[in-house]
């Protein structure tokens, strides 16, 4: 028995618009990407090989699933022509099919199965043709049955089309609520109905109400209420006194303080209502903190504190800089280039010097320990073009993290909060801890974080 999974891009085009940061076939249902549910079912049915076909590019899937060795099956990929039918697909994959019976799963739909039941013998004995179907999706079997018809053991199998946020929400909740007994779900440790990933920090005063699924690298701060029926992705911070109930929080999302997320899907800085399809953006920092707490901390005290601290650093580091910089420059160990980065106010960019410091010899190493590669940027703090500590400056050609105009949750700094916290600063992850500090930072806490960044950065550099 082998399996072909056939998808057409228009079936999941809706997901691209709403969840732009993840490929639809990798969209998490509960805490597992969609494609893995189909691979599990293919294995349950006794498949030794699976081929994924699509009429568009499936590069992200190839990089995620690779050759299938992780599931002990042979996984291959191919393309699909617009007017292909089940029958022409078999022709186009004749070498893959060989003489085996083939199960063709087509359409972007959620398969409702139960891993405890025996689909293998059923799949082997059913006549050729359609096994299950739903609008826009079907499971068909090709070729003659391999075994005599099994007794009519009830092995329910049904399909649910994933045609929009509402069906995606229902499917995710179904996967969560039926939990580990029906589907193979990672992270389901001791307690049923509660899956928790790695590196999850839960405050003592946080409450977890099952069923709940929490990903990796997540922080649940004081007095948060998670659940019931809450799906939290990876690289997520749920700030103090917020509650997440009957909701999905996708990867790389920051939920602010005292917020109520009920019956919603939060993804990046968008909050979506799966029923009405309405969505609002959450990158407006004050919106991330409840309105009761007065949000009138004006920017002035922070800018002054940053400028003073920058002045101190400029003078303290002046001597080592004036000594090391010429030597490094002459030795060719100091290469700098100008790069354009987004400035704090949307639409504008600032050009920053990016220094490539070769730290292989003693001089270079000391310069890098003293963060001298960012010495020139300190002067930009005096003119308030940069904060002393803030977000990692983002190159101008990459899309602005908060595409809509009112990008108040991004403030480029000489040092970044991610460096201070040594949060895994890869793309989306850094943004999360930075958004958290942008909402919480006051002048005093910022200075503390500058020291932390200054100390942690060399450590991070040497290990990088």
């Amino acid at each position: 028995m082998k399996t072909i999974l056939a998808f057409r891009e228009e079936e999941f085009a809706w997901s691209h618009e709403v969840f732009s940061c993840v490929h639809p076939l990798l969209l998490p249902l509960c805490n597992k990407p969609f494609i893995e549910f189909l691979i599990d079912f293919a294995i349950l049915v006794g498949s030794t090989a699976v081929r994924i076909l699509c009429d568009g590019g499936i590069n992200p899937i190839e990089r995620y699933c690779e050759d299938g060795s992780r599931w002990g099956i042979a996984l291959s990929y191919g393309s699909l022509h617009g007017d292909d039918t089940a029958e022409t697909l078999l022709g186009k994959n004749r070498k893959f099919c060989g003489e085996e019976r083939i199960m063709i799963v087509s359409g972007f739909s959620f398969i409702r199965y139960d891993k405890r039941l025996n689909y293998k013998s059923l799949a082997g004995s059913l006549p050729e043709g359609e096994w299950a179907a739903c609008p826009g999706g079907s499971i068909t079997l090709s070729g003659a049955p391999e075994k005599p018809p099994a007794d009519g053991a009830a092995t329910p199998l049904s399909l649910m089309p994933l045609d929009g946020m509402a069906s995606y929400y229902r499917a995710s909740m179904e996967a969560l609520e039926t939990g580990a007994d029906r589907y193979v779900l990672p992270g389901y440790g001791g307690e049923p109905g509660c899956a928790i990933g790695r590196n999850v920090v839960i405050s003592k005063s946080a409450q977890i109400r099952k069923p709940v699924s929490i990903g990796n690298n997540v922080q649940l701060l004081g007095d948060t209420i998670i659940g019931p029926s809450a799906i939290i992705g990876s690289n997520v911070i749920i700030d103090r006194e917020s509650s997440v109930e009957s909701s999905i929080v996708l990867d790389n999302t920051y939920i602010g303080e005292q917020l109520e997320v009920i019956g919603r899907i939060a993804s990046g800085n968008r909050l979506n209502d799966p029923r009405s399809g309405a969505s609002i953006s959450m990158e407006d920092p004050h919106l991330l903190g409840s309105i009761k707490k007065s949000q009138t901390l004006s920017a002035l005290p922070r800018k002054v504190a940053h400028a003073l601290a920058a002045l101190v650093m400029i003078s303290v580091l002046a001597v080592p800089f004036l000594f090391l910089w010429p030597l490094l420059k002459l030795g060719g160990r100091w290469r700098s280039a100008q790069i354009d980065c987004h400035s704090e106010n949307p639409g504008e960019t600032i050009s920053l010097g990016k220094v490539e410091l070769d730290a292989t010899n003693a001089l270079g190493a000391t310069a890098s320990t003293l963060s001298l590669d960012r010495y020139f940027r300190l002067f930009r703090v005096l003119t308030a073009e940069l904060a002393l500590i803030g977000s990692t400056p983002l190159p101008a050609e990459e899309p602005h993290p908060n595409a809509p105009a009112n990008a108040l949750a991004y403030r480029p700094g000489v040092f970044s909060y991610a460096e201070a916290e040594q949060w895994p600063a890869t793309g989306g992850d850094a943004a999360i801890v930075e958004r958290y500090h942008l909402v919480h930072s006051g002048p005093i806490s910022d200075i503390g974080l500058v020291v932390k960044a200054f100390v942690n950065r060399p450590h991070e550099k040497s290990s990088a």
Partner: protein
Amino acid sequence: MKFTLDNIDGQLVGIAELEGRLDARNSKPLQKTFLEWLEKTPLVVFDCSLLDFIDSSGLGAIVGCLRNALEKEGDVRLAGLNEKVGMVFELTQAKRLFSIFANRGEAASSFAVKPDPGTGR
């Protein structure tokens, strides 16, 4: 922003129509003009049926208006919130501070009923 005065069973109720966007640009003017309206009556309805965007400063302005009205034993009641605006109120729990009605008619007539002291907010 249109502001009209209605007489509901002897109660003078102000109806303010908010339109388009309420954000950092126009939230200060709203709070200022609200004080003038407050001179006429402490009971005000914000008809938001034409309001299609609100951010935190807009929300802050509306909460500010409520605070001023409460100081004058009045109230600000909201009507006709669309889904997006409603979501902002629900997310920030600001909806707990307001009575919210489907349309301006219901909101205005809710002032006519003598608020039963027991359930006063």
